[in-house]
């Protein structure tokens, strides 16, 4: 059973690497310029010239999907970083400090977990009308709780270990113990949380953009491409199929990696 798991995560890692490379290299590998219009070929079905078809302005969909990848992947990756950083801090402080600080932070975490995530994010986004960096921050702010809980549990168990007692005995300061002995110990949990957070970040961004409160056109993101495609679903289905497929594949790859990292650890 080990063999397929490793190849599964390899395939997923490769897929993510290709996607990120394609996103970075978008200006070079895209078949057309980002905003090139082919007015003779509007609403064109997928063809040799336009493998993914064209939209209502005659823009090449493959090009837009590639440029959209930059926005969607960046939001997924950076929001995951934000959420994991917040989660790591909250979890580590709660787990290490204990007492009322722990109680306070964990009750706040519980409360955040009770509030329906997507609707809260939608309300925030509708009110703030965020720029892309702001959006990243908002997505990170509503998705740190799982990481915080996992990190806290890990920190609490690490605190009981002998090497912590040893470090304390030789006079290491509390911040040093946390930085040198505790944080490295929670990295596996953080790794799983991060990969899952990337997938969730991409899903949240695309859901927001799908409802028109996320990334605003003309900046392409996979979510807002779907939003625009919604009304012409029956006549030009390709406009919705390809951006959605990209979201699906990316999230699938992230979850597959998180899944196999998690299982390797628990084995």
């Amino acid at each position, binding site marked *: *059973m080990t063999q*397929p798991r490793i190849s599964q995560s390899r395939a997923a890692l490769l897929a993510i690497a290709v996607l990120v490379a394609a996103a970075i290299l978008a200006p070079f590998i895209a078949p057309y310029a980002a905003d090139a219009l082919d007015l003779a070929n509007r609403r064109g079905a997928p063809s040799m010239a336009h493998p993914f078809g064209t939209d209502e302005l005659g823009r090449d969909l493959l090009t837009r999907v590639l440029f959209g990848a930059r926005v969607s992947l960046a939001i997924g990756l950076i929001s995951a970083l934000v959420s994991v950083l917040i989660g790591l801090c909250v979890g580590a402080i709660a787990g290490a400090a204990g007492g009322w600080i722990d109680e306070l932070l964990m*009750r*706040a975490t*519980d*409360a*955040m*977990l*009770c*509030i*329906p995530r*997507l*609707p*809260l994010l*939608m*309300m*925030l986004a*509708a*009110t*703030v009308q965020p720029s892309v960096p702001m959006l990243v921050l908002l997505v990170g702010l509503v998705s740190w709780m799982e990481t915080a809980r996992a990190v806290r549990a890990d920190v609490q168990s690490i605190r009981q270990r002998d090497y912590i007692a040893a470090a304390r005995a030789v006079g290491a300061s509390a911040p040093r113990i946390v930085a040198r002995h505790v944080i490295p110990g929670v990295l596996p949990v953080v790794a799983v949380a991060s990969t899952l957070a990337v*997938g969730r970040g991409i*899903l949240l961004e*695309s*859901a927001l953009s*799908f*409802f028109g*409160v996320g990334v605003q056109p003309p900046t392409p993101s996979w979510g807002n491409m*779907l939003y625009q495609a*919604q009304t012409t*679903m*029956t006549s030009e*289905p390709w406009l*919705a*199929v390809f951006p*959605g*497929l990209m*979201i*699906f594949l990316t*999230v*699938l790859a*992230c*979850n*597959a990696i998180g*899944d196999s990292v998690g299982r390797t650890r628990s084995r």
Partner: protein
Amino acid sequence: MMRLVGRRLVQAVPLLLVVSLLLFTVLHLVPGGPLSAYLENPNVRPEDIARLRVSMGLDRPLPVQYLSWLAAFVQGDWGYSYADGRPVMDRLVERVPASLELIGAAVVAALLAAVPAGVYAAVKPRVDRITGIAAVAGISLPVFWFALLLQLGFAGLLGWLPSSGRSGFGDRGLADRLSHLVLPATVLAAALASAWSRYLRRAMRETMGAPFIGAARARGVSERGLLWHHALFNALPVFTTVVLLDVSMLASGAVVTESIFAWPGVGSLFVDSLARRDYAVLMAFLMCGSVAVVTLTLVADALVLWLDPRTREAA
């Protein structure tokens, strides 16, 4: 046991207070706050905004505003909707049956898929492989995209099912009613079944390794009996908790599905109110969603205590 449940109930109150404080803070700290819908309207003059601010009590200190809002909320005074001026509670309550119908259908469908998948995956590696892949795919599937694809396929191309809406009571019969339910319920059920089958598989695997299963096997209980009776019943408490927690999330998480299929539930009310920045409705929705989560968590805790005597002794 009642004492344990009572203790949880007491803990739920401060939790909900923190939730309400968080939501209130969020709404009032964002630029414009509850008035932002008016701020952008060029027909509303600055002096009107100032007058609204005073009449809505927004000029008072924030703690005072919070307390008066909380007091009103607890008493069932959730304010009035900007959209049609009706009480927010009436608007939410009239949408609840449709949401419950959809969630109920989705949960039944998801259980019908997840229970056999999870049970067999625990003992049959081939089933495990297939359902494992299906589950990761199901969890990764963007709900709105899946919904659009189903609409395109079954309503657009094949024309077998209505693409959206919910038929009214009784007038066109059960078949019409069910046909409207199929697509949105499938979308919700796919994600639920994916997660549930994996949880059940893990719980079943742990149980199947327990000594009492070996003992039952030695007494000559059939493999079938072991799996479906001894193991499943032991895995049930954990599984029930997961199911109830996910359902509590659905109470508000069906926002996307309801809105795409124009299902007249609370989720689509939320999306409509979002476009209008109808904050009274949005806040009530988020508060009710949180209350649903807290309540169902409590119910799950109580159920587990009731189903599994070991937890009573441990607590």
